């Protein structure tokens, strides 16, 4: 996650290859470019037309049957179908544009169909792709058809002498009421056909260029997505730095203050032992014993503090052990059912702090009598739920802790969902890819 991705340089819109190519007319007309554009537009018409029909049917039926419920499924299906169609379109675009359009979606490898659908419907990219799908048939399909029809007409005109020669002695009429007398005269038709082909080539190139621009706009990640990526990366760096800092503090406390306090209480213990042997020093022995008690309390407090900064048991024994430990100390009974192997450190830390935060909230606000922590790994995804039987009505936006957790989870490309209806139960659910 913390590896750096190259960010595209953005100085105005990126050039479109086909629009660059038509600036040199002779080279353009002699190259493969016109044929590539025609192939692109022709296949676009073949795809766009059925897509248009499917959309009209799905949307029409969907609206008509929305009351029944199945209609809503159709509407959702129509929108979701835009995602694979857009993938196909991004691939087809290579026909006319060497620079590929990147996939705007977040990766959902290993997610179930329900999770996939929920996530996709929330992404703006999905709706942009749907918009593209609606344009594909009526706009690009139709325009593509016109260009291909013009091309077909031009090809027939170019072939006029051959046709005239082939069907003699029957007559061909290029201009109504005037028969073409022979192949030589038919060369005029060829000339007109070549002009028409040139027009078809330019029209096709311009249309393909327009479609490349549209596809970049609707099928690719947005410019602000790059900024978000940049922001996310800087946040990842921050969190990593913060985590390293926590570790350093924990190490310093462990190697410094904790050891000093242990040494202090040991020295006091020895002093106490010496004084106990002297009858006159009973008062002093009692004072030293008190000092040792105070050192012990300080050690306990320090231990709790250190555990909050960085739980060593998480590093040494993993998530299940660390969560079990927190559960043992929790004022409310907690049942733990974690079936997870050792995971990437970033994932373990995030999952651990999510659980501790949820448990702290349950203890503070909910009045719960029982909390259940359940977690498992399916495929490449860790799913954790913390459920309490308290009052509910928790506001996820209210807790700064939860907002911070949502950030952490988002950085791991995961999701954090809090549901807390009034009357309970409150359920916090985290899904993160295990790869970290």
């Amino acid at each position, binding site marked *: 996650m913390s590896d750096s991705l190259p960010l595209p340089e953005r100085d105005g819109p990126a050039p479109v290859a086909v629009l660059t190519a038509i600036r040199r007319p002779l080279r353009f007309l002699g190259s493969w470019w016109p044929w590539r554009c025609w192939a692109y537009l022709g296949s676009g018409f073949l795809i766009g037309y059925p897509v248009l029909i499917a959309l009209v049917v799905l949307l029409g039926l969907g609206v008509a049957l929305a009351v029944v419920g199945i209609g809503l499924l159709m509407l959702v299906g129509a929108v979701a179908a835009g995602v694979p169609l857009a993938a196909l379109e991004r691939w087809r675009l290579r026909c006319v544009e060497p620079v590929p359009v990147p996939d705007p979606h977040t990766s959902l490898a290993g997610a179930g169909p329900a999770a996939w659908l929920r996530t996709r419907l929330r992404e703006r990219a999905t709706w942009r792709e749907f918009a593209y799908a609606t344009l594909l048939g009526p706009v690009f399909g139709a325009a593509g058809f016109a260009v291909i029809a013009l091309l077909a007409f031009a090809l027939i005109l170019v072939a006029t002498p051959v046709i005239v020669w082939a069907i003699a002695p029957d007559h061909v009429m290029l201009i109504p009421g005037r028969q073409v007398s022979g192949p030589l005269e038919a060369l005029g038709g060829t000339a007109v056909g070549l002009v028409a082909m040139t027009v078809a080539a330019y029209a096709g190139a311009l249309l393909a260029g327009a479609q490349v621009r549209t596809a970049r706009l609707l099928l690719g990640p947005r410019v602000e997505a790059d900024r978000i990526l940049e922001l996310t990366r800087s946040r990842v760096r921050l969190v990593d730095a913060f985590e390293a800092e926590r570790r350093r503090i924990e190490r310093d406390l462990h190697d410094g203050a904790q*050891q000093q306090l242990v040494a202090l209480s040991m020295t006091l213990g020895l002093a106490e032992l010496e004084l106990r042997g002297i009858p006159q020093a009973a008062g002093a022995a009692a004072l030293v014993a008190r000092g040792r008690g105070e050192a012990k309390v300080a050690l306990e407090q320090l231990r709790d503090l250190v555990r909050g900064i960085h739980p060593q048991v998480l590093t040494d024994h993993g998530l299940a052990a660390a969560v079990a430990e927190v559960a043992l100390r929790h004022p409310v009974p907690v049942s733990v059912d974690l079936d997870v192997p050792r995971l990437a450190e970033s994932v373990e830390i995030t999952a651990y702090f999510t659980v501790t935060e949820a448990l702290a909230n349950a203890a503070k606000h909910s009045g719960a009598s029982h909390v259940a922590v359940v977690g498992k790994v399916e495929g490449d995804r860790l799913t954790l739920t913390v459920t309490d039987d308290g009052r509910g009505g928790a506001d996820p936006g209210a807790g700064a802790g939860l907002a911070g957790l949502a950030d952490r989870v988002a950085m791991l490309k995961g999701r954090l969902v809090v549901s807390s209806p009034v009357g309970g139960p409150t359920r916090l659910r985290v899904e993160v890819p295990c790869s970290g």
Partner: protein
Amino acid sequence: MLRLILAEDSVLLRAGLTELLTRGGHQVLAAVGSAEELVRAVEAQRPDAVVTDVRMPPDFRDEGLRAALELRSRDSSLPVLVLSQYVATAYATQLLTGASAAGLGYLLKDRVGEVAEFLDALQQVAEGRTVIDPEVVRVLLSRQSEQRPLARLTPREREVLTLMASGLNNQALAARLFITEAAVVKHASSIFMKLDLDATEGNRRVLAVLAHLSGQEAEA
């Protein structure tokens, strides 16, 4: 008098513990600062018992504990007392759920301040008994799910079990709780009955806690 090897990476504590153990009438054969040195020193000097810290170089994780387990796998009769900064039961579980817990101890470092009790715990471990820090036991007993046999113990029985696990014998236990030794025996037999343990086994006082620890191990 025990011939001991001590492993502790903090120079301050290494000196302090050496002094404490020497004052307690033991001989410190070697005081080392890393898990590797510990294993080498034990191989070379064959001590009566080992006292080791959990967290040591190079990675400052649970090297000391793992070294202890390695030493035990080479010689299952070597008494080892582990001093830890962590109450976390996972460490105690890691140490005590091997082939045999006889002659193993898991104590919080704080205990070294209670000099007499600490030296006594070391003696218990050297004699082949098991000692678990009362704080760890308290955490274990603090929150029991209803299905666990430990949940059936009365508060007084838990108190007795905690002190048993920390290595006190019946006489010391009676003195600590201000009850007669007969009452201690009665509590103990009640505990063993509730936990379905064979009371005739040696070192049975800790079996109860170990039963729980291995139960935890199976779940984790």
